[in-house]
């Protein structure tokens, strides 16, 4: 399933043959426009901030792509549609190819896709879960270098702890290098804060499934929107309290239950509590517990496409959970202005890899695996949900809204 199906191929005279900063194009995506690899393989690639990451959308040739996409995923092979974040796969040499006589210009498709996606922009939905006070809002603001969390949307910092878990989503459009991203941050205040936290994960689970349901309903419609709004949670950052001992019971309960319906990325919050030694020991213990409890956090081993993926992801898995520190304040250190926290004994620099692993998390989350997160959500988690729904009650009911036509299943 690795054919690029461009709508049209026209030799483009004035366009340069090789667009800058492109990792090898990765053609295997279940739906056009094809997913473009962001960065060449893992964290070490230079951040190609100018390269757009297309939405998991259904633009253009709708029915064709759709059919292809679904049959691939249903065949159970997760291998094919997964190349998003890793620059690998059929790499066409961009200089025209030695086997072709003369230059056709097929490679300019990349430039076309790029232009198109920059116009449309894309969206990304990230959920943050953890006790109050673990720095969730600050971290998200630091990650996206903007005030995007609920905290800045007029919410008073000293609000009382809600009695049940609430779900609060805030969206912002941020732009970088001509690329627009609609970022939605879903916060979960009240999680783990009560004396009795039984089932406090249920509202979260419900929310995630509701987004899948919304998407599914749109998908089975006869007259579908050109671009289905994607509110599905692509990534769930789970904040582990830096006790230095091990995971809490609530942590394992939550992650066990949700790791099969959403991509969970555990992070160790407020890591400036731990010395480097303590951090390493804590990480070891946490990883062992995650393993013992059978919790598959993202990037999941079973979804590694090929050896290159596997080796990149192995390195990341070895380093997780990342121990992070967030800050929205800047200080002067050695003549540079850095984001940090100023204490009486020194300044903790957020982006200094010797101080904490924030930079690693950011590169992993945003610069290399952003598209992959979306693809795994769409191709695996969503498909699992969809299959379950199809098997219930013998199939999906026709849409009850204005359209009274039957579904096309």
């Amino acid at each position, binding site marked *: 399933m690795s054919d690029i199906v461009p709508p049209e191929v026209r030799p483009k005279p004035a366009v340069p043959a090789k667009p800058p900063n492109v990792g090898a194009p990765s053609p295997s995506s279940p739906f056009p426009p094809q997913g473009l690899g962001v960065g060449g393989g893992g964290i070490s690639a230079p951040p190609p901030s100018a390269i757009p990451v297309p939405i998991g959308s259904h633009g253009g040739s709708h029915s064709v792509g759709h059919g292809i996409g679904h049959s691939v995923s249903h065949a159970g092979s997760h291998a094919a549609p997964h190349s998003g974040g890793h620059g690998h796969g059929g790499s066409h040499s961009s200089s025209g190819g030695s086997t072709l006589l003369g230059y056709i210009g097929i490679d300019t498709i990349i430039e076309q896709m790029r232009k198109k996606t920059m116009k449309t922009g894309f969206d990304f939905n990230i959920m943050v879960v953890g006790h*109050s006070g673990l720095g969730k809002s600050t971290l998200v603001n630091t990650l996206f270098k903007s005030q995007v969390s609920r905290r800045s949307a007029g919410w008073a910092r*000293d609000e009382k702890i809600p009695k049940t878990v609430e779900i609060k989503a805030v969206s912002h459009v941020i732009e970088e290098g001509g690329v627009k991203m609609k970022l939605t941050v879903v916060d979960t205040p009240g999680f783990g804060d009560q004396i009795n936290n039984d089932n406090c994960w249920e509202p979260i689970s419900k929310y995630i499934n509701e987004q899948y349901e919304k998407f599914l309903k749109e998908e089975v419609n006869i007259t579908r929107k050109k671009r289905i709004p994607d509110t599905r949670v692509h990534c769930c950052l789970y904040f582990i309290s830096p006790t230095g001992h091990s995971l809490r019971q609530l942590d394992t309960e939550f992650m066990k239950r949700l790791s099969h319906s959403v991509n969970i990325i555990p992070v160790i919050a407020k890591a400036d*509590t731990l*010395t480097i030694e303590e951090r390493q020991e804590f990480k070891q213990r946490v990883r062992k517990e995650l393993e013992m409890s059978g919790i598959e956090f993202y990037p999941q081993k079973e979804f590694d496409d090929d050896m290159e993926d596997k080796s990149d992801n192995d390195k990341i898995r070895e380093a997780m959970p990342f121990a992070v520190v967030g800050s929205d304040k800047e200080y002067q250190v050695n003549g540079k202005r850095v984001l940090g926290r100023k204490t009486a004994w020194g300044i903790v620099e957020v982006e200094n890899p010797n*101080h904490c692993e924030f930079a690693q998390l950011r590169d992993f989350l945003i610069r290399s695996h952003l598209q992959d997160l979306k693809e795994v959500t769409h191709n695996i988690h969503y498909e699992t949900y969809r299959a379950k729904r199809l098997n219930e009650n013998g199939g999906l009911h026709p849409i009850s809204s204005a359209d009274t036509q039957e579904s096309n299943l």
Partner: protein
Amino acid sequence: GSSTLMYKSHDQDKEYVGFATLPNQVHRKSVKKGFDFTLMVAGESGLGKSTLVNSLFLTDLYKDRKLLNAEERITQTVEITKHTVDIEEKGVKLKLTIVDTPGFGDAVNNTECWKSVADYIDQQFEQYFRDESGLNRKNIQDNRVHCCLYFISPFGHGLRPLDVEFMKALHEKVNIVPVLAKADTLTPGEVKKKKIKIREEIEQYGIKIYQFPDCDSDEDEDFKQQDHELKESIPFAVIGSNTVVEAKGKRVRGRLYPWGIVEVENPAHCDFVKLRNMLVRTHMQDLKDVTRETHYENYRAQCIQSMTRMVVKERNRKYAHAEGREK
């Protein structure tokens, strides 16, 4: 006080009785007998309680401790553990008992997890009450809890529901001294804000923490200033350490980070020294006195009242029964 008496004695030698030496006598006897002190530490696991205790008393009480993982802790209820250590300094002996509460606040459902703690405190009161009322009172063991250090997480936005419930359940049984744990997580500004917030919430919820006695009006200004600072420092922002690191050419107890060294005993870094001084050097006796005079007496009064009530009830029941039979 005794100073004026001493002054007078120089003039009236014949009238000098000599009981001015009483404090010295008491002192000598106590030193021979030794002191005891029972300190309880409570709070969620991972807040540095054991490390702080080791730092305060320069011991290694928790050397062979095994940390449980999340799976193992599922079936654990709140335990009460006791460690006793004898410390001697300049000829003065202290028998220190540390009461720990492993498992507190660690479960998913922590409803009433403070119950075993409250029960333990009551049990010590009850045992003392029995001993006190008994015949042989020579060697009464005093296991009453003199002070409870309650550890508040630095990661919250002030007090959590569990903190409030715990302190309210125990504030009339034991002297509660709240501490802000792992304070090296916070910048100086954050520490200040949190302390104010926590003090406000303590008042708002009607929690009665241990009150430092007001100083006498004839104390000197320095002492008054110190006393004022002490009161303003609640909750004490503490850091503990089991390791010695090298800072500016000296060896200090501290924590080594890539961005700097936190010195436990540096008053600019945390309130450890204030807490230690308060606990050991200035207020240890007062903590014991308040325990004895207030908390224990409350318990004793309640005990006697309920015993009397039971006796009366039993008596009435017997009368009613007897009357019933007569008819």
